């Protein structure tokens, strides 16, 4: 979220809330400042206090360092399943678009390539098992989950392709 521009903590929080909707309701302001100070210690974020204001986290403007930029780019490019929850993938798209780091559609394409390979793998394994066997049932579960994720990717694709046309 910082990739877009240097920001106050409350601005980051507002952006996250906008991106996550009710799914992000549990997130509180304290978490954001704790995370920011950890990232600062790790050298990924810097902060600057606005002149004449007390040294409080909510008065600071945070920005990504060069290392932070790299870390964000690597995170966005990373493809994995089922590791990241839906929200994480969703935030990658939002962050990539906001910071203009990469095209959300390219991220969707990369994720789809990976999921389809996994689907092929699981589906072939499922077909090799006798029908109605326990093993086939578990593999069918994997196949159905992958399929659901692929359908959500389709929805993501429609949405982000639509925004591209408008902009």
């Amino acid at each position, binding site marked *: 979220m910082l990739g877009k521009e240097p920001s106050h903590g409350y601005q980051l929080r507002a952006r996250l809330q906008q991106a996550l909707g009710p799914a992000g309701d549990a997130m509180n302001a304290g978490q954001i400042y704790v995370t920011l100070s950890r990232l600062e210690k790790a050298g990924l974020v810097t902060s600057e206090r606005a002149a004449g204001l007390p040294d409080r986290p909510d008065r600071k403007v945070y920005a990504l360092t060069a290392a932070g930029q790299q870390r964000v780019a690597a995170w966005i490019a990373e493809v994995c399943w089922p590791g990241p929850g839906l929200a994480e993938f969703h935030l990658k798209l939002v962050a990539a678009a906001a910071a203009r780091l990469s095209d959300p559609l390219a991220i969707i*394409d990369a994720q789809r390539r990976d999921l389809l*390979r*996994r689907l*092929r*793998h*699981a589906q072939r394994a499922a*077909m090799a098992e006798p029908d109605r066997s326990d093993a086939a049932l578990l593999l069918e579960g994997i*196949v159905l989950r992958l399929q659901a994720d692929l359908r959500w990717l*389709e929805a993501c*694709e429609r949405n982000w392709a639509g925004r591209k046309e408008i902009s």
Partner: protein
Amino acid sequence: MNDADGALVLRARGLRKEYGRDTGLVRAVDGVDLDVAPGETLAVMGPSGCGKSTLLHLLGGLDRPTAGDIWLAGHCVDRLTERELARMRRDAVGFVFQAFHLMDELTAVENVELPALLAGRSPRVARRLALSLLERIGLADRATFLPAALSGGQRQRVAIARALANQPVVVLADEPTGNLDSSATREVLRLFESLRAAGQTLIVVTHDSRIAATADRMISMRDGAFIDETRLTGGTRGSLADLAGLGG
């Protein structure tokens, strides 16, 4: 086409199909290049309206492109007369459609033997061929059934057998699982998998990820153009154990 490409089953260059004109101009297919090698299985995926069905129709000679060239089994399709094109479709291409398109008044075996009869084979040879195809798709015992007496999955399998009747160089399938429930889809998946294993060249356009995942290669299409391409074979990261949630 030079000699090096002679081995390709299908080759398309700069393929375009436009409908309408001026402000109503729609580029259903917009600059597609494609090479398909013998024995290759290819899935073209994309949202509805992305042009994938139009592309399939162009590749199979059901429709003529606005611009671009297609070579099918070594013949340049654009130079064929309508009559030659019809013969080419009948002999070199097997079509599979979402809605099966079986003849309702013909039995399963009569549907399957029809293309062979139209290609001039003797009734005896055509029947023998059709029966062996029904055997191959596991429906030998349904040979005398009318389509209405078959399940959706069985109808589509009969339609696939019909597509194979003239030993086509390529089978073109348009949303073959689009009208099927999940268990019927599985029947078709198995059949596609066995065609792939037997070395049948196959192009399927679909938005069903399961049928797409039977292919060796996948192309994504958007707004009439190819936007992404990948091999689905090999390179699978993550074991089945990880996928099942057993990973450490």
